[in-house]
């Protein structure tokens, strides 16, 4: 769905044609669900919270003025909904961050890995990333959002976002390299 089409649907929803909201749900459900799942680590809970995020977005769509992308606005709602849910449950927000970044990680050459395996390793490595790193990588690389857009979603400074993306990328390379080495030795 292009931006023009998206704005057209948003206008229709604002004018009371609620059914058009389903196009927006279809477009963004995977990424909203992925962010929820990464933070909540439970499929059922992630599905519930992803639904809640969309309903919140629908209920406050009149306040969406189109100054930012609809996707950034929606991801901010999703991220905040999931984080407050975790805090409400008084779960300790433990970030699995024991990945030791290697200095040579940046020199890693992904092209040496065949296409299908590359996808598999990358998917596995993404799963191992801590919640915030995963969200940042998803928003920056997958959704191609700018640092300015991301900082509003995750409520961080631009420099902090940049540093975290840089570190997340190194972590990704480190994980993939480790996996490759493991396979070679076994």
């Amino acid at each position, binding site marked *: 769905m292009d931006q023009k089409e998206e704005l057209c649907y948003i206008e229709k929803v604002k004018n009371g044609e*609620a059914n058009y*909201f389903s196009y927006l*749900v279809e477009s963004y*459900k995977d990424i909203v*669900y992925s962010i929820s799942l990464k933070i909540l680590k439970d499929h059922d809970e992630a599905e519930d919270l992803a639904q809640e995020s969309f309903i919140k977005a629908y209920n*406050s769509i009149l306040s969406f003025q189109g100054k930012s992308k609809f996707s950034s606005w929606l991801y901010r709602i999703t991220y905040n909904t999931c984080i407050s849910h975790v805090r409400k449950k008084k779960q300790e927000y433990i970030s699995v961050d024991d990945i030791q970044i290697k200095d040579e990680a940046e020199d890693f050459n992904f092209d040496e890995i065949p296409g299908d395996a590359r996808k598999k390793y*990358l998917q596995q490595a993404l799963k191992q990333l801590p919640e915030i790193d995963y969200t940042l990588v998803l928003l920056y*690389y997958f959704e191609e959002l700018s640092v300015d857009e991301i900082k509003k979603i995750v409520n961080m400074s631009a420099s902090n976002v940049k540093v975290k993306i840089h570190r997340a990328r190194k972590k*990704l*390379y480190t994980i993939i390299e480790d996996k490759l080495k493991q396979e070679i030795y076994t």
Partner: protein
Amino acid sequence: MNDEQLRSAIKDIKLESPSASFTVNVMNKIHESANLAKVPYKILGLNFWVFVSLFMAVAILFALFANGADTTGVVQGLLPSSGNEVVKGTYQSILNKLNMAPLSLAGILLGASFLLIIERVIAAKTQQAP
């Protein structure tokens, strides 16, 4: 590997998907909440009118007997054929007590009615907000 290579590799991966009925579930919940919002909300409900009626009744009684009028005639007027002195005495006693009812009771009821209206109006506005 540079940023662009990583971007194209990441864009290639398949994200986790929610259940097949996800969109339908979201839309059902949206339609349900829309239907709820359409239900007209009475600002002045039954409780309010019960309260106001009670207040009016007390106010009328108060107005009738506020001047310290003798209530004996009222009881006799209400129960002309009754010869039962006990019943007459009881009613007389009630009316005398009402006659003594302090003005503050009416004030409390009036204040409470006013607060009730404000509460209802705020509740109605909150429900209408998106």
